[in-house]
């Protein structure tokens, strides 16, 4: 898969304060790249640099195989974006806003506006002034505006903010469809880990302006993420049994009653059988999968400990 967007040692300093430091990221064509990080981590600044709204202090950006310079504008024709929150000319209607967008982008296909509005499930509102819209509706309209010209690359900053659960699901489906059917590449930032987990192919974790890790979702899913969680009032005896009878060493006592067993070669039924035979009460025993959230928190914590 070819690389559609890459940065190398990208940094930005605002008034002597480092906001983005040495970020080198690579986004492959057709991929959904989830940009994860706490608020204020520098996600928006990076996205603004990609769109040339903010100029890098140092480092390079390459999009569609071309280096981005201060004066580059042509590449913007091939990008759709929402930055921070969707802003519109509030007094104009949804339709007028989209028509303006198309005119500025040099895109003339009247049908596309209607299609985009239908795609985000915003119908019968095209003649309503945008200032009467709720945040969720604005978010949908923002996405409609970003995808109207069928861009090759979509840069969406917190696109699911302000949506209700149904809206979030809709957006997930739309993003999936844009990526699969239209072959678009999506760069989506969010602090909602669960959402990113469901759609992203690759995630980039960013903290305090640094890209801590860039990793395919498949790798995270394959990394020791399955475990058996055992809850017992008698954890000392239980750990003794696990170690000496079942010869399991790969486990962790979370607090004084919960034990996580990462050894997957021994069946859950065998573990419970052995514990019961040794008279150890089991409050619960479940097979679990570590979520992206846990992975993310571990990564962030590691960086904090390191710092």
């Amino acid at each position, binding site marked *: 898969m070819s690389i559609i967007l890459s940065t190398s040692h990208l940094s930005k300093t605002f008034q002597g304060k480092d906001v983005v430091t040495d970020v080198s990221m690579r986004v492959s064509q057709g991929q959904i790249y989830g940009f994860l990080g706490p608020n204020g981590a520098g996600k928006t600044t990076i996205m603004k640099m990609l769109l*040339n709204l903010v*100029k890098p202090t140092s480092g390079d950006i390459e999009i569609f195989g071309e280096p981005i310079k201060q004066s580059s504008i042509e590449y913007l024709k091939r990008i759709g974006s929402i930055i921070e929150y969707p*802003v519109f000319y509030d007094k104009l209607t949804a339709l007028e806003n989209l028509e303006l967008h198309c*005119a500025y982008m040099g895109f003339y296909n009247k049908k596309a506006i209607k299609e985009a509005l239908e795609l985000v499930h915003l119908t019968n509102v095209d003649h309503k002034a945008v200032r009467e819209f709720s945040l969720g509706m604005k978010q949908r309209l923002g996405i409609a505006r970003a995808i109207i010209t069928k861009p090759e690359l979509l840069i969406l900053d917190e696109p699911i903010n302000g949506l209700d659960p149904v809206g979030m699901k809709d957006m997930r489906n739309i993003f999936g469809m844009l990526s699969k059917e239209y072959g678009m590449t999506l760069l989506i930032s969010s602090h909602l880990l669960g959402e990113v987990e469901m759609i992203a192919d690759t995630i980039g974790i960013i903290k305090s302006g640094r890209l801590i890790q860039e990793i395919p979702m498949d790798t995270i899913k394959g990394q020791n993420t399955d475990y058996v969680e055992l809850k017992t009032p008698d954890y000392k005896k239980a750990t003794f049994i696990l170690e000496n009878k079942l010869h399991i060493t790969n486990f962790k006592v979370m607090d004084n009653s919960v034990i996580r067993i990462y050894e997957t070669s021994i069946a859950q039924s065998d573990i419970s059988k052995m514990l019961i035979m040794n008279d150890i009460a089991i409050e619960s025993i479940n097979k679990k999968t570590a979520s992206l959230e846990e992975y993310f928190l571990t990564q962030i914590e590691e960086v904090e400990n390191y710092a």
Partner: protein
Amino acid sequence: MLNLMKLEMKKNKFGWYFKGVVIANFFILLFMCLIPYVESIDEGPMFSGVTDALSVVGTFVRVTFVIFASVLYAKLIIDEYKSNTISVLFTYPIQRKKIILAKILLITGMTFIVIVGSNVFVSGAFIMFNHYINLFPNDLSNKWLLPALVNIVVQSIAATGMSLICIYFGMRKKSVPTTIVSSLLIISLVNSNNGNFSISNIIAIPLTLAVIGVGIAYFTFRNIDRVDIV
């Protein structure tokens, strides 16, 4: 460029502006007809002749529409920054300079046309009324007409250029009130009438200010392509 200007017109719908222009024209005319009545109580006639009357009309029209222009700058430029729509506008594949220049050309063009047009309308109507109400001695020769028209055009160019100065103050603070107030201060300073003397009558002064206005606008947006939009 024309296309960008058309888009600005579509975006902003100038109906309110032209309504304002019509209303302001009638008020200026009304005011012109009222001043001589108020003034004549104290001392003789207000206007010595048609040239004198037209100079007062010119002052009112310029002051009014330079302030109107500052409202347009506030709305078309400063407001885009305030409402952050500028961050959408600058992600289009169009040079930032071109976008801003289109806005400035549209506003200066409108301002110039409106100042000339209003001058002609109010002056014409006032001279016509004068035939009936005799506020100043009628001059039936047409000798004054050509110099008056030239004066209107030159003063309008100067006023339009001067209207640009407020952009500098408005952009520094990204503030709508600053834009309008700075324009109000500049134009009232230049056009204030002190014992029948106003510095706008020495045409070199408003013309110099106009050149300064153009320079300031250039200076304000010179680096726009390199500036961070945060």
